[in-house]
């Protein structure tokens, strides 16, 4: 018997500040338009007509890191690219998240050699790993929704401590 039921018809919802902040963050999360390798094509496919990621508030890919909240590292990160990825991540404003899309970005994939970082988590902190080589667009969308869940559980006091 909360206040919602008594005042239901008046269009008032009571909630916590935390939930409002987290809800608004997930409903307009702008990813960075930044593809590295094969997975970038599947990322494009996820944006395009058949899979249409804009259903989840992700239609706006920003080319500038200053305007984006989410970095989808789509592809293998070479030793030459790693510092650039780190620079881009540092340029994104807080709060910022990162998805490692595909096997190469998660753990190095089939390329275990001198040129490739064995996982982009050696370069930037990663929130969600999406498996697959390359992951299907559905898998990427699932990864994004998993990230939404994670964001939904964030506490404001953690953000202060960060």
């Amino acid at each position, binding site marked *: 018997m909360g206040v919602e039921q008594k005042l239901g018809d008046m269009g008032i919802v009571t909630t916590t500040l935390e939930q409002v902040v987290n809800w608004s963050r997930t409903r307009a999360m702008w990813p960075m338009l930044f593809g590295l390798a094969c997975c970038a094509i599947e990322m494009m496919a996820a944006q395009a007509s058949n899979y249409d990621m804009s259903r989840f508030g992700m239609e706006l890919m920003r080319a500038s890191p200053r305007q984006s909240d989410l970095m989808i590292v789509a592809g293998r990160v070479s030793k030459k690219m790693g510092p650039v990825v780190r620079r881009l991540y540092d340029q994104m404003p807080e709060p910022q998240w990162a998805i490692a899309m595909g096997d190469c970005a998660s753990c190095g994939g089939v390329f275990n050699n001198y*040129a490739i970082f064995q996982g982009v988590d050696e370069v930037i902190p990663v929130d969600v790993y999406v498996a697959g080589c390359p992951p299907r667009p559905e898998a990427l969308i699932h990864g994004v929704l998993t990230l939404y869940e994670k964001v939904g559980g964030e506490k404001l006091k953690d953000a202060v401590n960060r």
Partner: protein
Amino acid sequence: MDKKLEPILHALQEKFGGTLEEFRDEAHVFVKAEHIVEALTFLRDKHDFELLSAMTAVDYWPQAQLPFGESPRFHLVYQLTSLAHNLSVQLRVQVSGSRPEVPTASGVYAVANWREREAWDMFGIRFTGHPDLRRILMPLDTEGHPLRKDFPLGYEEPQFTFNFDEIQLRKPFAQD
């Protein structure tokens, strides 16, 4: 092998004293490093080999370590194509391991500019007279040349364990 190729190979052997190897209908002609620019120019101008299809190198370390003298550690490979006559020929140059230097072919084929930069980056073969011999693929501070056989693959041992503390310990995670 194509009949039309035979006079060209004869001319090459006469002019530059190259030895001929054949395998699966492909002709490989070995020429000396000092003759390579001349040979490429000759093929391009006299026999219409307009396209330098591929250019790469092979490292024969350590088999090529002869006990004395200059060992030809590298082979440079020039794959040429003639569009007009639909022919292919491969030139090979032996390069010593102690002083890998070859005159540049970038004056003959413009594409050799980048291909030679790649050979320098990957094998450490110097091209004398090259206009812009910098690393092309690897970061500038790389030590060594990755495609040489004495360069390690850089293999990282996968950790087949469920002990996550151990995995976390070894993995160099990035910080915020």
